[in-house]
């Protein structure tokens, strides 16, 4: 019996605008999950760089659709109510979030931390999932 080939892809997102913080760096479309890598640089406006966390109800969805793909796991960023407090305005953090796997037909996604976001929430809209680079698993 021929085994089905597991396919996984990588998307390098477009270069960020200067004000993007965190920046969406990379999206990995894995068979079992969607991994999104972010880079965050502690801003000077907060004393000692402030703090970060991610809301447990953060989700992704195909742009223009309603189906939610929920947060499964995180790395280097605590899930609220826990916080990561920076120690200085020179600190930085690379973190990853894992969501439920997207359908293969998805072309653009939204990342939603809050449906009605404030300026501090990590919401991103209409992120292209092209071009896709095959991953070696």
């Amino acid at each position, binding site marked *: 019996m021929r085994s089905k080939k597991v396919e996984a892809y*990588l998307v*390098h*997102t477009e270069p960020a605008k200067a004000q993007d913080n965190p*920046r969406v*760096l*990379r999206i*990995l479309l894995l068979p079992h999950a969607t991994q999104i*890598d972010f*880079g965050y*640089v502690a801003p000077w406006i907060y004393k000692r760089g402030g703090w970060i966390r991610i809301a447990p109800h953060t989700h992704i969805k195909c742009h223009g659709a309603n189906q939610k793909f929920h947060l499964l796991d995180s790395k280097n960023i605590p899930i609220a109510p826990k916080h990561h407090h920076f120690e200085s305005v*020179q600190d*930085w953090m*690379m973190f*990853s979030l894992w969501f439920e796997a997207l359908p293969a037909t998805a072309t653009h996604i939204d990342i939603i931390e809050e449906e009605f976001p404030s300026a501090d929430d990590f919401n991103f809209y209409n992120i292209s999932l092209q071009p896709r*680079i*095959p*991953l*070696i698993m």
Partner: protein
Amino acid sequence: MNLSKSALRRYKIIDQALRNKMRPYPNMQELIALCEQLLDYSPSIETLQKDIANMRLPYPDGFDAPIVYNRLKRGYAYSDLNYSISGIPLRDEDMQALAEAVEFMQAMDIGRISESFNHAIEKIQSASIEQRQRVQGILPVLQNMTLPQTRGFEHIKLFYKACREQMPVSCIHYSYKKRVFNVLMLHPFLIKEFENRWYIYAYSETHGSVRTFGLDRIFEPVFVKTTFIKTDKAQAELFLKDVYGVFPVPGAKKCTVKIHVSQLGTQYFQAFPLHSSQVIKKENSGTSVICFTLIPTIELARFILAQGGHVKIIQPKWFKQFTSHALL
């Protein structure tokens, strides 16, 4: 006993054939056929005769194997039925050599390269060497500065594989200076260690040129299935031979760097040459003019600055200015 890999393989096949009780007394043709089957090539009769003669030689030149030719059966056999070359225990000399090698490798911290290598060392130690040292009260006589493991070192195995097997890598890079994250598509060809910091040399698709990246600033590297872009061999060799350190001064080409060194400094340069191209011309007073032919690097500038008044750059002038003005 100095053995080539292919000879050792043949010895093992001969040993296996002589111990096979189902087909005792193999003759020369059967040994050749077995080698052909297991090695994918057919050794000559002369080669196998030499192999058998070598196996018969006493230690340390051979295995002291009791191989006899049985005229009646027209084949070879071990006169000692329990003999096998793989069953030979390590002798004291072997143990001594292994112990010294392990101690040396530990001192050089070679084990950091690979987790599996560490396990191999641990196995040897637990087998007998460490025990032998403890029993005899022998303290290690080699020590170097073993620094704590640095960030990013866990990726070294992946990049080693990428360099060896020419596999492109996608990773995230953070620039300490610019305070910016970038996603890179790298085609690595060299891993280099300098002052306990590890660097990757790679063609960066993102930058469109060969670049150097500190492993401590690289995150989440993954292999990707795209065509590997090879770096020109001559260009790659530049990074191997013609630099002291890691990061060439932007735009710098290979040139002669001439420095004036104090009397005390000269002693150290004599004892610890900075680069293979180093040429010292001593002056009557004991001071010297030292020339290097290399690509000036940030690390060379840093080194010169760290020597204070002992070292002064004579030429090139641009490097003198760079070293005095650059915020390193």
